């Protein structure tokens, strides 16, 4: 499994989270217990001392002192942690065989103190108290001590337990996390299995939305819409290829056929001349188709208009009309230009688009009628619409009119120089400028146009 497997990463993250949680909780728990454990020895020492205090204070004779000694001895035997020392000037009133170390300690301040005895790993918690002289007894220092070893050991084993528990917990969290992630990711795996079935030419399939977790809904929807676009592009490409082949086939047929016919027997020089000229016409046609397709292909590949100059669109339309002047006169069609706007354009490209738009309009306009060119500034873009009176175009055709080789009337194919790429080139030029094309058919007029960013 690859290192960036989601399940592995999730289980790693679970482990990390578990580590963090255990650290925090364990730390807090440990601090709390440590605090309580620290108080315990003092509490015990205090308890023992309070039992003995009044007796020690009261007894001032050696006879009485024997009783104290016996009691202290009993207490130390009962609880091995406890130690008692009594230090005084008179050995009779002493207990616990205090050595020099103890004596030195006993001379220190009274109260709760720690005593480190040689031979012990852990200190004793010691309550040092002072008793004034009574009867025959000299003043005493009374030491109630408790060995803290057991407390320290408790604390130590708590720490060990916490750490090992945390380790087990982290391990469990990561293993269970991995398992949970695997279960959680199951829909994804199913999805990818389903997606694997969708390869060309079987692009018509879609990922199914039912029984998918909502988190994947959006992904599946956008994946499906991408598939829609891919399928459209794919089928457009397929039909484009077929159209190209078809479009090239008829000039090629003419070329091959008439050359073969010419060569089958001896012909006059005039005849050969004729054939060559006709061939040249067909070849020019091929050249123009290929050039147009190369232009469309470069636009498809995302080629952009680069030499942009801010220009008056009415002026560009006027220049285009100047070029088309003879055509318009021949067709007895007039053109009226309304409005003006300014936009950054690559003039040669825009001119080409305008020629194609206007030429398209002229071809569908009867003599004596008027074509309108409307230039509008729409705020965020400018639009140039070429409107001619003409038969209404069926709604089904409208969105396809700017597609390559698309013809409303299929029988009108191969009509002279018109190889059905004119409007496709208009669209390509719009795209190269970051614009769009539009077409409307209403109230007996048809409008083809282009929107350009300004």
């Amino acid at each position, binding site marked *: 499994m690859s290192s960036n497997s989601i399940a592995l990463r999730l289980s790693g993250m679970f482990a990390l989270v578990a580590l963090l949680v255990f650290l925090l909780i364990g730390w807090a728990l440990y601090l709390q217990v440590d605090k309580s454990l620290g108080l315990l020895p003092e509490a015990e020492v205090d308890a023992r001392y309070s039992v003995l205090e009044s007796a020690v204070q009261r007894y001032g004779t050696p006879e009485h002192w024997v009783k104290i000694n016996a009691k202290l001895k009993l207490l130390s035997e009962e609880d091995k942690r406890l130690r008692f020392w009594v230090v005084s000037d008179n050995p009779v009133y002493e207990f616990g065989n205090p050595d020099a170390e103890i004596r030195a300690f006993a001379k220190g301040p009274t109260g709760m103190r720690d005593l480190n005895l040689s031979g012990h790993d852990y200190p004793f918690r010691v309550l040092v108290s002072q008793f004034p002289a009574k009867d025959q007894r000299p003043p005493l220092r009374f030491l109630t001590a408790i060995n803290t070893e057991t407390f320290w050991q408790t604390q130590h084993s708590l720490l060990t337990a916490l750490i090992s528990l945390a380790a087990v917990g982290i391990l469990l969290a990561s293993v269970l996390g991995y398992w949970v992630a695997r279960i959680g990711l199951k829909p994804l795996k199913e999805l990818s299995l389903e997606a694997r079935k969708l390869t060309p030419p079987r692009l018509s399939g879609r990922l199914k939305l039912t029984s998918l977790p909502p988190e994947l809904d959006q992904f599946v929807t956008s994946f499906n819409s991408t598939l829609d676009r891919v399928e459209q592009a794919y089928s457009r490409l397929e039909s484009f290829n077929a159209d190209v082949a078809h479009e090239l086939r008829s000039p090629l047929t003419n070329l091959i056929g008439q050359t073969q016919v010419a060569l089958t027997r001896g012909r006059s020089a005039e005849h050969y001349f004729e054939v060559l000229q006709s061939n040249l016409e067909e070849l020019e046609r091929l050249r123009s188709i290929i050039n147009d397709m190369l232009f469309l292909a470069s636009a498809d590949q995302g080629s952009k208009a680069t030499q942009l100059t801010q220009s008056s669109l009415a002026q560009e339309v006027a220049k285009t009309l*100047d070029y088309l002047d*003879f055509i318009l006169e021949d067709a007895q069609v007039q053109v009226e230009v309304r409005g003006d706007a300014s936009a950054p354009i690559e003039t040669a490209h825009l001119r080409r688009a305008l*020629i194609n738009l206007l*030429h398209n309009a002229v071809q569908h306009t009867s003599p004596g009628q008027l074509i309108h060119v409307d230039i509008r500034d729409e705020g965020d873009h400018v639009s140039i619409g070429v409107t001619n009176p003409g038969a209404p175009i069926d709604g089904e055709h409208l969105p396809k009119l700017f597609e390559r080789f698309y013809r409303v009337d299929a029988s009108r194919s191969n009509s002279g120089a018109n190889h059905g790429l004119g409007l496709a080139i208009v669209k390509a030029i719009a795209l190269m400028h970051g614009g769009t094309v539009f077409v409307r058919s209403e109230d007996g007029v048809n409008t083809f146009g282009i929107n350009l960013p300004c």
Partner: protein
Amino acid sequence: MRVLIIEDEEKTADYLHRGLTEQGYTTDVAREGIEGLHMGLENEYAVIILDVMLPGLDGYGVLRALRARKQTPVIMLTARENVDDRIRGLREGADDYLGKPFSFLELVARLQALTRRSGGHEPVQISVADLWIDLISRKATRAGVRLDLTAKEFSLLSVLARRQGEILSKTSIAEMVWDVNFDSDANVVEVAIKRLRAKLDGPFEHKLLHTIRGMGYVLESRRVE
């Protein structure tokens, strides 16, 4: 005028050689880059026609090596009409650029543009047989009769007359008269020629404006043989 053709595609090299020789150029042909570069450096050529896709050293390589020592004008030919290619070719010192498929007439026109020395005197008056054109006052007469031409018709006539005897393709006519340098569906040039012909040749026995089918148009006096 001597021209070097560096082109590995045999048919292309052959017809260029033949065509340009017939146009009055002395032509040498090299079939590969290294050989072409060597010839280009050794001899003095008016123009070098250089294909981009060549075996051995490619067209850009030849151009770079040539430019290091010589400034012979170069026309690049390429099958990939891609804007980047064009920019690259021109940046590395090509003087002109033609994408395949190109027309032979187009190539000849570019060749002439490169070899025509700057400062050539543009004539102010041209005559072809009994046609007389004054480019300053923009008047044209035939057999002493003033031709009633529109401004565009006069521009078309003067473009043809300046290159009398030379076949001009529709594309180059559109470029010279209307500054439109791409193919368009509209057959503007045909319509314009038809109109000019009606006024120029219509009333006269001796025709001056001829159509070369599939290639273009030529203005010349073809006297009865």
